């Protein structure tokens, strides 16, 4: 537990001080997206990495959060914070309700069902033009305000988003190391055994699904207020897959791994701009190499690699002597 606390403190400190090292609006803007993606990846990791339940439709919850917040605070002039809270609760409730029938399914069937859910939500964003603005998007969303502070610059947004990320990481790390977190991992590993230990597997799965959806919705709300504009392509199937990739590349069942995954997959496209449409080839290749050589994700793969390199050096030294 103490170790977790230190890890968290180091992480928080790095986040706090990062703007001193990295500056410029462009970079700050990218880091804001890293933050939003981290929240999404952590949320999906709770479901996939801990409880072992796949979702190919998580972008839907992200989108519901974004559109919900945007529409309520713009069309209906709600206070944005109130809108964010209400939307998070509603999306959580919705996920809870659909979780019961959906999470009865396992493996590929669960993937299909969540995929279907994602597609339905995407179609609603696209087609319900009167409310969502349809394919041309929804604009004019106000920035968040806190008293006299208006979150209208990239640096301000950086601190706004990352304070949410830190909250979300703290919650997730605590949850993962609690009795409930152990139960998630137990369901993942041996569901029948978990059930005969008294773990109500079905309810827990639905609960983690709802929690995961809520975090995504909050990330969506932040996204809407930071961007002040939302459009359907930001919440499509490819985004769900990208989230999945972040979680797997970062390391299943590791909260900080999700951060690494989000960082890598958000920064990479920025560096790959010069490749234009061919970046997807690089992407695919990276994914293949990662799964072959680092099946445990970055968070486990990098220390292994490090050990291998230092081990190799030591061996060489031994041969000389």
């Amino acid at each position, binding site marked *: 537990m103490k170790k977790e606390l230190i890890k968290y403190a180091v992480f928080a400190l790095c986040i706090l001080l990062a703007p001193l090292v990295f500056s410029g609006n462009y970079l700050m803007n990218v880091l804001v997206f890293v933050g939003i993606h981290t929240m999404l990846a952590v949320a999906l990791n709770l479901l996939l990495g801990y409880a072992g339940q796949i979702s190919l439709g998580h972008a839907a919850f992200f989108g519901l959060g974004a559109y919900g917040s945007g529409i309520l605070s713009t069309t209906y002039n709600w206070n944005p914070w109130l809108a964010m809270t209400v939307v998070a609760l509603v999306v959580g409730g919705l996920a809870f309700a659909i979780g019961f029938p959906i999470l009865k399914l396992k493996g590929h069937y669960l993937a299909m069902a969540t995929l279907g859910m994602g597609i339905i939500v995407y179609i609603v964003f696209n087609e319900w033009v009167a409310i969502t603005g349809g394919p041309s998007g929804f604009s004019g969303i106000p920035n968040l305000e806190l008293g006299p502070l208006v979150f209208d610059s990239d640096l301000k947004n950086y601190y706004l988003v990352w304070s949410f990320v830190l909250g979300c990481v703290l919650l997730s790390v605590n949850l993962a190391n609690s*009795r409930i977190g*152990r*139960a998630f*991992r*137990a369901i993942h*590993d*041996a569901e*029948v*055994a*978990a*059930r*005969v*230990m*008294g*773990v*109500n597997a079905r309810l827990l799965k639905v609960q983690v699904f709802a929690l995961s959806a809520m975090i995504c919705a909050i990330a969506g709300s932040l996204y809407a207020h930071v961007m002040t504009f939302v459009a359907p392509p930001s919440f499509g199937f490819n985004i769900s897959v990208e989230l999945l990739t972040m979680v797997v590349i970062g390391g299943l069942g590791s909260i900080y791994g999700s951060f690494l995954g989000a960082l890598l997959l958000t920064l990479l496209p920025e560096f790959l701009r010069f490749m234009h449409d061919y970046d997807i080839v690089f992407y695919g290749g990276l994914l293949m190499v990662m799964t072959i050589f680092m099946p445990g994700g970055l968070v486990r793969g990098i220390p292994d690699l490090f050990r291998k390199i230092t081990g190799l050096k030591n061996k060489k030294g031994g041969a000389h002597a």
Partner: protein
Amino acid sequence: MLRLKNINTYYGKVHALKNVSLHLAEGEIVTLIGANGAGKTTILNTISGVTPANGGDLLFQKEEIKALAPDRIVKLGISQVPEGRQVFKPMTVDENLELGAYLRYRARDPKAEILKDKEEIFQLFPRLEERRKQAAGTMSGGEQQMLAIGRALMARPKLLLLDEPSMGLAPLVVQEIFRVLQRLRDERGVTILLVEQNAKAALKLADRGYVLETGKVILEGAADELLENAEVKRAYLGKDKKEIWER
């Protein structure tokens, strides 16, 4: 303590248990023996609520538990050691044991009590203590079986259901585990329902036994009588085959 009356259980259309009736008195060790597919595991899963019965009565301490969810049944005092051990492989021994006390943590049982129980399990299985920070999946089959039993005990069961604890283990390890089961009954009064393929070892340990065939109880009696029963000997103990073939 436990009574099954005309229990019927289906897997989809497959009629897995046909009018099974059996009972356990408090402090008894009872064994279920039978070939693969006879319905032994299904009986345990039906009792623990994993595959609920479709008909009949299932009484635990005179209370109907047929329609209860598994977590409610654990709470009443029935713990199962599932087939094939099913320890939580990536988790440490400590974490596995703490998961056994899952409902007690939720019920806000004093933590000191839970930790004390854990120490008692380490006394029962000293090898687990040596490996307490080790991932369960890296241990030997025997150690995993000990962990599975320890994990079930963490819930403080009155009735312990064991599904083939000897499966795939060396005879010496089986002996060690069976000795612990005996101690659990003698010292703590835990009632035990033991499903076994190793009929001989099981009948030696048990007070009574039931023989199952294709979902039905075909024979029941005191364990020593079953050990001497010609049919049981032939079918499950592998003795006297020669005489029967030559008849």
